[in-house]
C-alpha cells in the first residue's frame, strides 16, 4: 500500500514562499486582503513560518514551510462529527466540503493550525485567475471553480494530481508532484511513497537526520523536515 509523504529540505529552502503562492493558484484558494490576513481570516492551505531565536545581532531564523502534515493519527479526523474529514487509504487526509457542517472543531483540534474556515462568499475576482493555463478546465470538479462559505478547508497534497497520475500510470514523485513541490525553485520539497524504500523521499530520509513538527503530540505527521 502506498503512503504518500513529503520531505522538506530546510537546508535548501530559501523562504521565497513560491510554494504558498503555487498552492493558492493550483487550488483556487482565495487571495484575501492584508486586513483579513491580520485578523487570520484568509484561507491558507500552505504557509511559511519564520521562527527566530536569540536577539540581534546573535539571531538565527528558521523558515519552515507548512503544508498539512497529513498525520497518520490525525486529531482532526478523530473530532470531526460528520465524517467530513477522513484519512484515505493512501494516507492523505482529505476534507469533504459537502459533508462539512462548519462546526470548526477540527480547527480547534489541529496542533499545526493548517485548517482554515471559509469566512465569506468569495467574490469572483478573489480567485479568478485568467493567467492560469487552460488545461485547468479538464480537472473535473476539483479544484472547485467556486466554493461555499462556512466550511473548513485544508491542503490535500494535491490529490487530484496524484489520482490522475496513478490512473495514467505516471510516476508520482518524479513526473507528478504536488504544486508546492513543483514550484520550489530550490528543489527543496520531495514527494513520494514513504513505504517504498526505493522512492526519493525514503532515500533522502535514510541519508540524513530528519525531524517532524510537534512529534510530542503523537500524531505521526507524514511531512518530514531535513534540518539545516
Amino acid at each position: 500500500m502506498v503512503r504518500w509523504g513529503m520531505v522538506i529540505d530546510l537546508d535548501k529552502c530559501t523562504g521565497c514562499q513560491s510554494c504558498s503562492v503555487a498552492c493558492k493558484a493550483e487550488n483556487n484558494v482565495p487571495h484575501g486582503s492584508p486586513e483579513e490576513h491580520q485578523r487570520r481570516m484568509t484561507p491558507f492551505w500552505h504557509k511559511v513560518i519564520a521562527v527566530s531565536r536569540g536577539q540581534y545581532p546573535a539571531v538565527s531564523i528558521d523558515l519552515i514551510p507548512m503544508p498539512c502534515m497529513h498525520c497518520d493519527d490525525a486529531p482532526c479526523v478523530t473530532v470531526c462529527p460528520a465524517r467530513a474529514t477522513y484519512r484515505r487509504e493512501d494516507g492523505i487526509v482529505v476534507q469533504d466540503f459537502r459533508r462539512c457542517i462548519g462546526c470548526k472543531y477540527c480547527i480547534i483540534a489541529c496542533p499545526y493550525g493548517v485548517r482554515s474556515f471559509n469566512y465569506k462568499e468569495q467574490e469572483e475576482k478573489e480567485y479568478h485567475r485568467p493567467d492560469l493555463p487552460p488545461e485547468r478546465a479538464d480537472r473535473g470538479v476539483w479544484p472547485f471553480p467556486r466554493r461555499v462559505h462556512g466550511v473548513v478547508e485544508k491542503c490535500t497534497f494535491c490529490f487530484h494530481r496524484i489520482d490522475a497520475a496513478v490512473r495514467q500510470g505516471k510516476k508520482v514523485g518524479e513526473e507528478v508532484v504536488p504544486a508546492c513541490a513543483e514550484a520550489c525553485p530550490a528543489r527543496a520539497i520531495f514527494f513520494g511513497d514513504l513505504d517504498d524504500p526505493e522512492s526519493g523521499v525514503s532515500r533522502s530520509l535514510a541519508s540524513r537526520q530528519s525531524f517532524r513538527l510537534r512529534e510530542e503530540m503523537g500524531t505521526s505527521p507524514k511531512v518530514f523536515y531535513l534540518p539545516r
Partner: protein
Amino acid sequence: MNFVTLDGRSGAYRLTVAILALLTLGGFAGFIISYLAGHQVFGASNAVPWGMPIVMAIYLIGLSAGLHILAFLIYVMHQDRYREVIRAAVFMAIVLIFGAMLFIALDLGRPEKFWRLFMLFYLNNMSSMFAINAIFYTAYFISATIYLVSLLNNMKRFSLVMGMVAFGWAMLTHGGTGAIFGFIAAREPWYSPLSPFEFIFAALTSSLALLIVALVIIYKSTGRLLRQELIVSLGGLVKALLLGMLLLMVIGELTHLYAPSRDAVVYTLTGPSSWLFWIFLVGLGAVVPLVILFHPRAKKSLSGLVIASVLIVIGIFVKRFYLVIPGAAYPLQYYPGKIEGVWGALGTYRFAPVEIALAVGMVAFLACLFILGLKYLELLPAKQPGEDAVTETPAIKQTTGELNSGAEGR
C-alpha cells in the same frame, strides 16, 4: 400541592413579551446576515475559531442543571420543601437546553446541515466528542421533557423514575460538554482531565444561582410569598457547590503550574486577558459571593442572596468566555522559538455587532419562551390563602378554571 398558570394579561406581562419578541427579531436578523454573508460578520477567526455562540451554548447548558440537583434533593434526599419550585425549574431547564442546541446550530458554518449531528452511528463519526454530545444533549432534552409531562400530570412514581434518569443524564451532559474542551491536546489552556468535573460543578453552581434569581423575580412580580427558608437553603447549596468548583479549579491550575512546561497556565493566570479571570471570575464571581454566603446575617437576607447569585451567574459566564475565547487565542507552538508575524501572535477577537445581536436575540427568545410557558403551563405553585394577591386570584380562576378544577380534582 396545587400548581396554576400565570394570568398573563397585565400590561407589564404584555410589554415584556413585546420587548423580548423585538429583541428576538433582531437576533433572527443577525442570523440571516451571518448566513448570507458568512462568518466574517462574527468576531471569530482561524486563531479563535469559536466565538460568542459557543460561549452562550456551554453557558446555557450549564445553567440548565438546576432542575437536576433539585430532583436529586427531592427524590434521594427527601427534601420535600423543594417540590414547589421543581416544575418551574424543569421547564427552565428544557428552555435552556433547547437554547444551547439552537446556539450550536447557529454557530455552524452551514446551519442547514445541523441534522448531520444527529445521524448517530450512521453518518457520524462516533469518536468525535461533538457526536457523543449530540446523544447526550438530545436525550437530556427528551428526558427532561418527559419528566415535565409526568410532573404536569401528577404521575408520582413515574416522575420519580424520570427525575433520577434526568439527574444521571445531566451529569453525563455537563461532563461531556467539558470533554469537548478538556480532551483537546492541541489547546494547552484547555487540556485537562478535570475539565468535565469542573463543568459539572460550574453548571450546578450557576444554575442554582440562576434559579434563586428567577424565583425571586417571578414570586415578587406575581405577588407570591416566597418562603425565606427555601431560598436560604438553596443559598447554602450554592455555597457548597461554589467551593467545590473553586477546589477543582485550584487543583487543575496547580497541576499545570507544577510541571516545568507551564507556559499555558502562566498565560491563563497572567496573560493580557487575565483581568477577566481575576476580577470577574475569582473576585466578583467567587470571593464576594462566598463572603456574602458565609456572613451570618447576609446569608439569611434576601437581598444578600440575590446579589451573591447574580454575581455568580455573571462570574460563571466570564469563566465560559475566558475558556472559549482567550483560551483558544493562546498561540500554537509549531516549532521551538519565537514564531514571527500573525502565525505566532496571540489570536484576536473583537465583539461584532451581528454576533452580539444574535446572542442577545436568542436569549430574549428563550426568556420569551419561558414566560409564555408560565402562562400556558401549570408551573407555579398556587397561592396560599392569606397571601396578598386578591387582584390576581379571580383572574386565574377565570382563565384557567378548567385546568385548575382538573388539578384540584386529583
